């Protein structure tokens, strides 16, 4: 019996589910992935965090595993001599995971064209792990051009063919449509989780949501779906006290992840995070991906035209600031927190312009940088408390 079935049958408590997820999210030896491999004999494919169409990997019988670096739990030792210190932590610590043998389960690595760092990492990876399946996936940035759809569909077709070589299983359209349905369901459940938090933030702490959503990065989606269903059924069974909050949106965590303590510190300081871009790769689409017709076209369409906006995909005709301000209105947001990973250029550029737009619209902002390995949160706590007080008492 799988762990999740176990939850459903025996009705383990909310706290236990969350604790269990948290352990799996933070375990750098990927026990859930190893267990899956042992059970199924399948291939596990690591994916750098944003815009890998994992549906294709699942449809090929593989397990897509999102890599989020060392989670601050890893000494950067071998990677130091390969990637300089002025580069974001996730690139360095993901390489370290590989060099320090934490990824010996990995049968392949997909690096999408997230940014300059990710792109160059693909080549570093190839040299350090010769012979490993490494697929560099381009995401067209000229989103408004008709040629982008043709190109990206072709790119996905090439990816599909390579995956079939890796797993030995050709990916039929039917299998892909079925994977799309499973992933749609997963995004629907995640959206429900986030929606509930928006309505009742005290009931759904950000770090709990993070663990529940994050465990999907190391589990087959079917299993994650069961787990989310169980968690949603349990979530409101133990009411938590209401408190004085400032409802905030949090931006900058689309790729490198913050330490979970950072989310906790923000909440303790009085920020109810009701909109964030953490682990955004798993909830990238505004609409379900079409599960009929040509599935590659459906995925390509979705990636080009139905995505949330992150600093690393091009908005085309959409406006980044309008998008953020629209969300703020929709969710009654009172302030925006820009937390960028140190050295993450895409996030840092966007923060400048978005901060200006948000302030121009009359909303207060808070800005700071974080690092994977951050252990002292006092300065963030103080800044957040000041921010909350100023919103609660002066605006």
């Amino acid at each position, binding site marked *: 019996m799988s762990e999740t079935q176990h939850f459903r049958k025996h009705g383990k408590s909310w706290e236990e589910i969350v604790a269990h997820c948290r352990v799996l999210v933070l375990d750098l030896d990927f026990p859930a992935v190893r267990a899956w491999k042992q059970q199924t004999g399948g291939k596990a494919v690591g994916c750098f965090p944003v815009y890998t169409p994992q549906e294709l990997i699942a449809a090929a019988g593989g397990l897509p595993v999102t890599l989020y670096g060392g989670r601050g739990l890893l000494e950067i030792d071998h990677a130091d*001599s*390969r*990637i*300089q210190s*002025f*580069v974001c932590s996730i*690139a360095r610590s993901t390489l370290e995971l590989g060099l320090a043998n934490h990824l010996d389960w990995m049968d392949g690595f997909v690096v999408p*064209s997230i*940014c*300059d*760092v990710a*792109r*160059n*990492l*693909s*080549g*570093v990876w*190839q*040299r*350090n792990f010769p012979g490993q399946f490494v697929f*560099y996936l*381009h995401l*067209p*940035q*000229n989103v408004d*051009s*008709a*040629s*982008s759809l*043709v*190109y990206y569909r*072709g790119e996905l077709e090439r990816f599909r063919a390579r995956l079939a070589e890796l797993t030995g299983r050709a990916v039929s359209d039917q299998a892909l449509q079925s994977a799309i349905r499973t992933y749609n369901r997963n995004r629907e459940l995640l959206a429900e989780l986030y929606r509930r938090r928006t309505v009742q933030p005290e009931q759904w702490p950000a770090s709990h949501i993070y663990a529940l959503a994050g465990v999907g990065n190391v589990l087959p989606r079917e299993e994650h779906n069961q787990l989310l269903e169980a968690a949603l059924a349990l979530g409101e069974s133990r009411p938590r006290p209401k408190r004085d909050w400032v409802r905030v949106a949090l931006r900058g965590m689309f790729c490198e992840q913050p330490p979970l303590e950072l989310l906790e510190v923000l909440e303790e300081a009085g920020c109810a995070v009701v909109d964030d871009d953490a682990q955004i790769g798993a909830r990238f689409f505004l609409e379900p991906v079409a599960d009929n017709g040509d599935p590659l076209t459906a995925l390509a369409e979705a990636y080009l035209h139905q995505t949330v906006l992150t*600093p*690393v995909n*091009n908005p085309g005709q959409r406006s980044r600031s309008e998008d953020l301000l629209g969300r703020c209105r929709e969710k009654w947001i009172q302030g925006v927190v820009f937390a*960028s990973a*140190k*050295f993450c*250029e*895409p996030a*840092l*550029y*966007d*923060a*400048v*312009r978005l*901060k*200006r737009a948000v302030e121009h619209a009359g909303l207060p902002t808070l800005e700071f*940088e974080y690092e994977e390995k951050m252990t002292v949160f006092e300065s963030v706590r103080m800044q957040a408390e000041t921010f909350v007080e100023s919103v609660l008492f002066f605006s």
Partner: protein
Amino acid sequence: MSSSYQYQDVGRDLQKKMLGDWYRRLENAPRDGTPVAYLFISGNIGELLRSFGFELLYPEVNALQCGIKKVAGDLILKAEDLGYSSDVCGYVKNDIGLATSGNRGPFGTLPKPDLLVCNYSGCNTYIKWFEALAEHYDAPVFLLDVPYRRTGETQRQEDLDYVVAQLEQLARVCAEMTGKPYDPDALSAQLENSRAAEDLWVRILESAQHRPAPFDAFFEAVFFMAPIYVLRGTRECVDYYEAAWKEIEERMAHKLGPVSEERFRVVIEGPPPWPNFRNFWELFKRWGVCCVASTYSKVGGIWDFGLRHDPRRPMESLAEYAVNCYTNWDWTLRRHMLERYVSDYAADALVIHSVKSCRAFSVGQADVREHFTRSRDLPTLFLESDLADPRYFSEAQIRNRIDAFFEALEHRRVAAVRPVA
């Protein structure tokens, strides 16, 4: 230089004059009613824009000029005051600093863009940069998406087809903006010039295979390459390379080189530290170091492995060119290029100048050092500073590292020739 030489310094002086004239044309563009397009050096498809009558402005070149003229530091601080992090690319900050101070630089006052062409090739920062300028100037952006050139695969036709489709789209945008129809003959005529200039430029680059090398493929190449990057496609650009080639021929005839005595031949990977360009060069000259091949001279196009613009296939060859710029190559290709340079140019060492600003260039350089020192047993010197931000250049530290490196190299050489007792 002694007066018995006819052509010496032509390469540097003539390009200076050409750039001066070009900046004057830019300054006058609003008065003359000439439309102005901003674009980037890597993968620039300038010939196409020029065929519609655009005058071209390259913000990177302005940033470089500000670096050399030592005004970059203040402009960067200005952008940081506006909220830009100390950790983002100094070129972008330099340009934001310029744009928000009336676009007045050491080269005069620059016109606003009518069109921003983000000829995306090998750098994501380009996109963020032009997003910011689009907002600042309220100007339209055309994003030309150029896929990364990936390992182990020959040039993929689908990548080229995709770029061609977008170039055709860009041509329609330009036609609409300027009221001029796309004229393939005008474009081909420029590409003919491009090809002629590229032939000559490659000849100059390859001259460094001689001993002594007549030309420094890094410190001098940065001047010699300017015309082919910003004025490629014009007749004056071809004239320039004809004149520059004469200078090189004359140097070869007289065994002249950039250093009085060539003691070490190196390949250099990475861009120069513009605000400290002279000092940096001096630190190498003292050791009789000549750079015989560099990757920086390939950021705006790789022609020494055979690619050329082709007037018979205008759009296809523009696409092929755009895909094949240095930082748009993945690391396996970049590594092969370095290996080839080391052997074809008989280099004694590899020098890597890693700049913080440019992750497109630098992420992976430490890994390539590992490769050359461990797997190739090639002495490799790794230096860190920046291409735009003077705060990152620590002269004493860099000098020490350079001195220690060449001292060791000299020692190794002496030890190698000493007969075994």
